[in-house]
């Protein structure tokens, strides 16, 4: 009997050890992946699927210590292009465009860049090795990032064997159904990338600056809003208030994150105008919830389940209500 117990304990211990090893391996892969996405020079073609919607795009990426530069453009439908360079994100779209722009956010690396942040992520997610697969003709290791509750989505990442670059990714809901998917059909590491291929376009017309104040400066103040209770693991990482260049509407922007999922809370005074959104809305992995609070439109948007945006919206209240007894 004692022998049986000892054998069972040993077996359980071995299972625990191998599970811990697998989880550790998955974290190492994720660390390598973060390095790869920021430092590699590469070029490739990918498809993006969201519901019935299918897109093909081409991307050229230049990594390095001086910051990433990247150009991606659509291969299907009308021509569209996104250029990331010199701390700018520029979207170019067909002729009927009118540019909106200038968020004013400093494109500093997200906290996830640091390995210790991966440790913190483990409070809300499990990392798992998920076997091997082939993407764009290349061998890949599949990693799963599984949520520990229903307040966030799961992720599945296909990482190229040699470089750990993400060649395929999927955002999964609680039943494992893919809400959004992206997969490279062709991908190549480039020793060098021609600067011309990733340079930002010469845009002649100045863009309006909805994210800046009247003098083009960001207004940074204490938020007028508080959250009674945030969903498990989420914390506030940014607060910003800005005025739209075209309509001069003052908007407050609060960003919450659990280290992986990002949720934005936008607030603006209604001043007699009708609300933009009341209730729930969804597109792919993006959920939104709008409500009117204290004559303000509150809009919560993020790549999280409906229940999470709704919880955040209902926890929101004016700061004055809390400070006044």
């Amino acid at each position: 009997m004692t022998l049986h117990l000892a054998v069972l304990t040993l077996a359980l211990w071995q299972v625990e050890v191998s599970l811990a090893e697998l989880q550790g391996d998955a974290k190492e892969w994720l660390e390598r992946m973060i390095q790869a996405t920021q430092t590699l020079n590469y070029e490739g073609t990918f498809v993006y699927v969201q519901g019935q919607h299918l897109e093909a795009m081409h991307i050229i990426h230049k990594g390095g210590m001086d910051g990433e530069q990247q150009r991606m453009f659509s291969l299907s439908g009308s021509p569209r292009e996104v250029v990331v360079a010199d701390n700018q994100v520029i979207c170019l779209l067909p002729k009927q465009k009118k540019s909106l722009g200038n968020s004013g956010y400093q494109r500093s690396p997200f906290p996830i860049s640091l390995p210790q942040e991966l440790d913190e992520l483990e409070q809300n997610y499990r990392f798992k090795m998920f076997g091997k697969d082939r993407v764009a003709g290349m061998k890949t290791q599949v990693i799963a990032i599984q949520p520990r509750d229903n307040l966030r989505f799961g992720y599945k990442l296909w990482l190229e064997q040699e470089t750990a670059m993400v060649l395929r990714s999927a955002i999964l809901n609680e039943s494992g159904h893919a809400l959004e998917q992206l997969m490279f059909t062709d991908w190549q590491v480039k020793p060098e990338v021609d600067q011309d291929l990733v340079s930002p376009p010469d845009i002649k017309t100045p863009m309006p600056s909805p994210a800046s104040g009247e003098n083009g400066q960001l207004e940074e103040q204490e938020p007028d809003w508080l959250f009674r209770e945030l969903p498990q693991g989420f914390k506030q990482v940014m607060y910003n208030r800005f005025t739209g260049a075209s309509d001069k509407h003052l908007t407050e922007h609060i960003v919450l994150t659990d280290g992986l999922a990002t949720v934005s809370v936008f607030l603006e005074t209604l001043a007699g105008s009708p609300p933009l959104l009341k209730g729930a809305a969804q597109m792919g992995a993006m959920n939104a919830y709008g409500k009117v609070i204290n004559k303000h439109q509150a809009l919560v948007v993020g790549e999280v389940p409906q229940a999470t945006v709704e919880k955040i919206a209902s926890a929101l209240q004016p700061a004055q209500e809390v400070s006044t007894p």
Partner: protein
Amino acid sequence: MADKSVEQLSVLVDGECEDWEVEFILRRLARDPVLKEHWECYHLISDAMKNNLPALVDANFTGQIRQAIDAESVPQVPAVAKPASLYKPVVGFSVAASVALIVGLLALKPSESPISPNQLVQTNNLPNPPMTSSQDTGPALESRLNNYLVNHNEYASMNSVHGVLPYVRMVGYEPKR
């Protein structure tokens, strides 16, 4: 992809290009030497067919002009320090595409209560998720909603795990074709 560019170039030479395509093709032409060769070839063919060619054609004519221009001395302009504001992060975005974005957002899952009689509510009850034009949805309101989604996705793009997905969301939803 190269074939597609060459095909677009051919359409451009024939003057049959859509307005919105022109700037994209020209931008690509400016940095693709192979495409430039095609461009010269197409014009040569076109001139030959219209009988516009001289008796002698110098195949390196454009190359010589380029060399001559390179050899020209360029007037020196004193360097001017750029004002700091030019270095601020800038995001340009199209109303057209972002209109489609927010309409998609609203159309897929109707809100609990109507938004407002003359705003985005029309899109909610239609059988096929539509791409509405800005006239019937209030451009000012849409522009505010669009800013929200762009700002959100720009912030989300700073997380490396999400890769290029947030950028795709910025342009991945087409305006009405």
